[in-house]
């Protein structure tokens, strides 16, 4: 139980170290007497003060051996000479200490960043398909039905019937053509482009001039 007196009375240790029992105030004496007796207090105080004086005197009398310091400095020098500067730098780097909260904050920041990045919806780019309906006229030789032969004279040339065909031309907004590449398709495409170019030219579009149109027409045909 007595071992915990310093704990029970935090001031006791300080009083023992600084004052003898006679130097204590009445209030302090009352407090001390709860823990230990007067004789005991004085004995403890004497041991502390005498020991302090004794240790201080002893320390003054001691002289360090200069050979130890010389030896240590020599070792320091030799160690420094054989030390690799890169290794030294790495050592400094890896033994660099910092308060725990700093790396914790950095880690937390990256964790939040990853979380946000992970939850973000990936937007895929979709091109809107624009559909135009192109009408073009194509002259095809009319097939004479057998029943109508009597209507036309036999030397009369075959009447060119105009047939209108509709063609749905799809192209992406980015200008990438998505139509098929069969010869028929190519034909239709060329026709469509011709029409477009002609229309642009009519409107006096600056991007087109005669040479461009001619060039196109040559290529197209």
């Amino acid at each position, binding site marked *: 139980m007595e071992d915990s007196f310093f*704990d029970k009375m935090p001031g006791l240790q300080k009083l023992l170290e600084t004052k003898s029992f006679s130097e204590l105030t009445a209030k302090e004496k009352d407090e001390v007497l709860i823990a230990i007796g007067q004789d005991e207090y004085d*004995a403890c105080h004497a*041991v502390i003060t*005498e020991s302090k004086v*004794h240790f201080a005197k002893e320390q003054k009398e001691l002289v360090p051996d200069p050979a130890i310091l010389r030896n240590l400095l020599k070792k*320091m020098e030799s160690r420094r000479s054989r030390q690799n500067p890169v290794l030294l730098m790495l*050592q400094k780097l890896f033994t660099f200490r910092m308060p725990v909260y700093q790396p914790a904050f950095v880690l937390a920041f990256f964790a939040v960043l990853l979380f946000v990045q992970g939850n973000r919806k990936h937007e895929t780019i979709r091109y809107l398909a624009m559909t135009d309906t192109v009408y073009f006229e194509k002259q095809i030789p009319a097939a004479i039905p057998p029943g109508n032969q009597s209507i036309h004279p036999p030397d009369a040339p075959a009447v060119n019937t105009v047939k209108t065909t509709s063609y749905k031309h799809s192209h992406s907004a980015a200008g990438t053509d998505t139509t098929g590449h069969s010869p028929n398709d190519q034909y239709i495409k060329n026709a469509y482009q011709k029409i477009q170019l002609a229309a642009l030219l009519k409107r006096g579009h600056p991007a087109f001039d005669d040479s461009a149109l001619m060039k196109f027409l040559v290529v197209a045909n």
Partner: protein
Amino acid sequence: MRFLQNLGKKTDEELLQLIRDGNKEAFSVLYSRYSIKLYNFFLRMLDKDHGKAEDFTHDLFLKIIENPFLFDMNRRFDTWVFHIAYNICKNEYRKMAVRNEYQQGPGKDLPVITEAGNDRSDVLKFSEALDHHLQLLDERHKMVFLLRYQQEISIREIAEILDCPEGTVKSRLFTAIKRLSKKLSVFDPKIN
């Protein structure tokens, strides 16, 4: 010379920073500050064995030279250095215990201290008695007593050095004081 004077003003932690960079003068200053303290501490802890005290002081400073990066700059240097000293002593006590067990002897013979007379001026006898009874204390109590009254380290720092709660340090200190006061009461005229 002026450089050395400037180094003398630096704190222990700043000096250690310079030692890390290989500054010999900084090491000399740090050595002059702590060599006697550590030597005296080892001397007391190791039953006045001067040879061992010198060796251990040398070893401790060698550790500082070889591993200055192990020191945590957020801590106090004196606490760190005495923590190393404490570990050295603990290892030595362990070795000594094994040696004593092996030899099965009664251990080191201590000089018998006769009771002092009423002459309180007999400081030499008090010193002898203090040395004698300090040696009889077990290492935990001796350690706390020396750190507090020889090295004048605060209770909180002693707790840090010994890696134990402050309450434990206080109770060990009180036990040490009480035991010594009982043994040394012969030198106190008030008790006689």
